[in-house]
């Protein structure tokens, strides 16, 4: 058994054809997840039971089940229902890409909402009291005090979550999508050279992860320039 370096060299371009799809999956899911997460967060901190309980059930379900199962339910399961096939959402659910983005976004939103909640809870109470004493209304306190500080506090945990999402996009290869993982699997099935191919794609993922981590580190540094908390 030999280690074929030429094969790595030849395959990398082919693996990289999947990088576009990997990025699309990642950034679209993360984008929608963030919007959903903010809504979920507001529900959770509202204090109203009819908003808090649905939030808690949602988070419980999406964090308690494997993301692969969620992807399969949406991709394989949803087309089973007439009402989905005939609805305006069908173009999304008919397409594996749409299913993957929906599944990843729903899953990530559960985690991100809890991360944001952790950040919000980390804002020192006295700062909000000072705002109240100055006459600021609750929504003003949220926008000017809670949000800026809470976001900054959330960055470390969010950066880890972002990396998890980067890895989760690889699961899209199980529903026929040709992201980097899908491309790699296709090549392996042709060449029977799992080591060379999978190690190559692993290296690409590692480089990407390294870039993301450094970026978040810089972001956090920038936001923490003038802050003690």
């Amino acid at each position, binding site marked *: *058994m030999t280690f074929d370096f030429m094969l790595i060299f030849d395959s990398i371009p082919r693996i990289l054809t999947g990088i576009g799809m990997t990025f699309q999956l990642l950034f679209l899911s993360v984008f929608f997840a963030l919007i959903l997460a903010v809504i979920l967060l507001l529900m959770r901190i509202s204090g109203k039971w009819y908003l808090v309980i649905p939030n808690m059930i949602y988070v*419980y*379900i999406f*964090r*308690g*089940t*494997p*993301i*692969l*199962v*969620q992807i*399969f*339910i949406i991709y*394989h*399961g*949803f087309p*089973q*229902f007439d009402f989905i096939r005939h609805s305006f959402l069908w173009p999304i659910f008919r397409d594996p890409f749409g299913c993957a983005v929906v599944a990843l976004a729903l899953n990530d939103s559960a985690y991100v909402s809890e991360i944001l909640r952790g950040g919000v809870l980390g804002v020192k109470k006295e700062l909000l009291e000072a705002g109240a004493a100055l006459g600021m209304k609750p929504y003003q306190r949220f926008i000017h005090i809670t949000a800026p500080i809470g976001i900054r506090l959330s960055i470390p945990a969010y950066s880890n979550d972002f*990396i998890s999402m*980067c*890895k*989760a*996009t*690889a*699961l899209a*290869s*199980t529903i026929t999508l040709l992201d980097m*993982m899908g491309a*790699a*699997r296709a090549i*392996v099935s042709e060449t*029977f*050279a*799992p*080591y060379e191919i*999978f*190690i190559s*794609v*692993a290296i690409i*993922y*590692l480089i990407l*992860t*390294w870039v993301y981590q450094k970026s978040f580190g810089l972001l956090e540094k920038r936001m923490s320039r003038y802050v003690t908390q």
Partner: protein
Amino acid sequence: MSVLGVLDGWWDDYFWGSVVVLEVFLVALVMMVLLGLIGSAAKLSNNRIAQKLANAYTIVFRGTPEILVVLLFYFGSGVTLTAFVQIFDPTVKFYDIPPFWAGSIAIALIVGSYATETFRGAFLGVEVAQIEAARALGISNFRTFIHVRVPEMWRLALPSFGNHMLSLIKDTAIISIIGLNETLYVAEQATGTTNKPFIMFMVVGLIYLSFSTVITLAVMVLEKSANKHLRSV
């Protein structure tokens, strides 16, 4: 109810699939804890080589998708083993290690890299003053470790460790991709026959939800007991 009727005949397959999930979880858990302990010990040691190896371990396995590691392990070891076995018996086409082991080792390695950081953080989180106080009282290094460091480390590590266990059990679903007959695999078979994918996969979801609920509750109980000395009256 006709919905549940579809599942007739599959109940015991799901049951055995759940047993497989549990088996993989327990095996991987043991490996994960060992890897975490060894890894954190290496990072905390003074040995430069050990540190570098442990750092490489965490960097590689925290940045690589789980499915990639599982596939690499399974097919990679298959190729290696096949080549090895073909030396002795050229007629063998493909020799693999069972998906159970390929999968367990793969997910243990991944979550173990996170556990390394958790244990390392917990170790460093023990107040130095407490350790110094124990040593000043004449308590030996070893006894200080067992009676002062370990209980505190356990308390600090517990929340994150609980999350690692949850990751571990959910990652077992990925092993279905290489043919392990756990619940997701069962669901795929069942879908092929019954053509009712939604309910089949929902059952898998419910099974995993139950497992993660049990783990979460267990961790809550453990956290309560680990923190009981800190609760004020």
